[in-house]
């Protein structure tokens, strides 16, 4: 669960983006719509704890027992974060030291749904941009952090792939909450916000 309380993202001394109160439960998805340079990416980076020029509070909450086991957040952005010489499967299981049969089955099902099943052992350097992003998303569903942060999701997927993304989310039965940013509105997200006059407002 994510709880944001009056978070102000700054660039230098300038207040770029103000967020009032946002609460995101487990398995919920949230979309933040905004134009270029509106502070969407910095908002995600702040939550990902890679950007620190901000005031206010946000809290990533999970029960104490699970917190030890789960990664706080995974950020999927424009960068290609796959190893080119590794197969799709090897890239998905990169951070897993042990892969159980159940996980293998889940990966196989998710890849089939994303139409990656037939090229399961293909090197990731041979994939298209949207396919690499699909692999990164499957990997995030498998690792299951508390938060999955996706920057500019509309750049990755067309309408069909966007539907696949939501089907993958459903199939994975992930407990992760998802925060995505976009320049356009995508209706399928549970909660939708827009950046308006440097403020995050609910839609």
């Amino acid at each position: 669960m994510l709880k944001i309380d009056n978070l102000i993202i700054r660039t230098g001394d300038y207040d770029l983006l103000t967020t009032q109160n946002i609460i995101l439960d487990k398995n919920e998805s949230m979309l933040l719509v905004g134009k270029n340079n509106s502070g969407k990416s910095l908002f995600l980076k702040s939550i990902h704890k890679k950007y620190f020029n901000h005031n206010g509070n946000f809290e990533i909450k999970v029960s104490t027992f699970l917190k030890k086991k789960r990664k706080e957040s995974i950020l999927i952005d424009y960068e290609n974060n796959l190893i080119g010489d590794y197969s799709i499967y090897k890239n998905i299981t990169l951070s897993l030291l042990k892969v159980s049969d159940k996980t293998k089955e889940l990966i196989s099902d998710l890849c089939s749904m994303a139409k990656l099943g037939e090229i399961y052992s293909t090197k990731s350097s041979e994939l298209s941009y949207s396919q690499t992003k699909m692999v990164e998303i499957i990997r995030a569903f498998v690792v299951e952090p508390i938060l999955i942060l996706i920057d500019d999701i509309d750049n990755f997927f067309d309408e069909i792939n966007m539907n696949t993304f939501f089907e993958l989310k459903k199939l994975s039965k992930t407990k992760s909450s998802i925060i995505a940013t976009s320049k356009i509105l995508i209706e399928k997200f549970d909660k939708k916000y827009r950046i308006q006059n440097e403020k995050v407002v609910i839609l």
Partner: protein
Amino acid sequence: MIKNIFFFIVMISIALFAYNIFYNVIDVKINAYQKILDKIPIIVVTDNDSLLYKVSSELDTLNFIDKIYFIMPDTLRKNLIKKYKLETANRYLKNSYLPKLMKIYVKNGKFNSENKTKIASVLKKYKNHFTIKYNDELWQEINSKTEFLKSFFNNLSLVYWGIITLFLFFLKTIFNKLNYFYFWKSFLKSGGNPNKWVFSQILQAFIISFFSILISYFLFYPIKIFSPYFTPPTLKIILYEFIGILCVNLISILLMKKNYD
């Protein structure tokens, strides 16, 4: 991962086995030289009985002294008669004066410069009462040969362990088709825990070190059938090698991580 571990166990076992064979060859050579020295005693000649026993008791405190023999004039006379067939001159020899001898033997492989100096410092105190007979030139010659072999082995060992470290690192890189910069970037971005990764690598390093030492040790037994001179490494050497291989593995893990940090 199991294929990976198995591959490294085989590679390191072969490298260690070659190292042990090389160590054996050098050791056999050094032992052969030292055996020449072991057979040649330091001979102290004197006519002062009490001083001889006093020196002997002082030398006994040195733990590298193997044995000390005394040869009294009567025994010396008999030995001379026997060796040079002087039976006819026995009557003259009986009346002639002969000194007392003390033969000092050093333990196998312990007659190095340091121990030689220790013996010399004991004998030096009484040098006015003694005549010391020893082939010092031969000792110098053999000592310089053994010292050369030892330093040759030590220098080569340093080069060997250096090569093994780089070899392991590059082999891991090639074997895993990895560019470590991209590996770490992708690993961390995919939600990987670096501490868990390091722990799993250390665990792998332990497994690889343990089994490669074990295999390289047992490889000596079939070799022994063909050449009895070769002996498996001692527990001390095994321990050193285990620590060495473990350190090499750990250094290669650090190199991997350093490439990204």
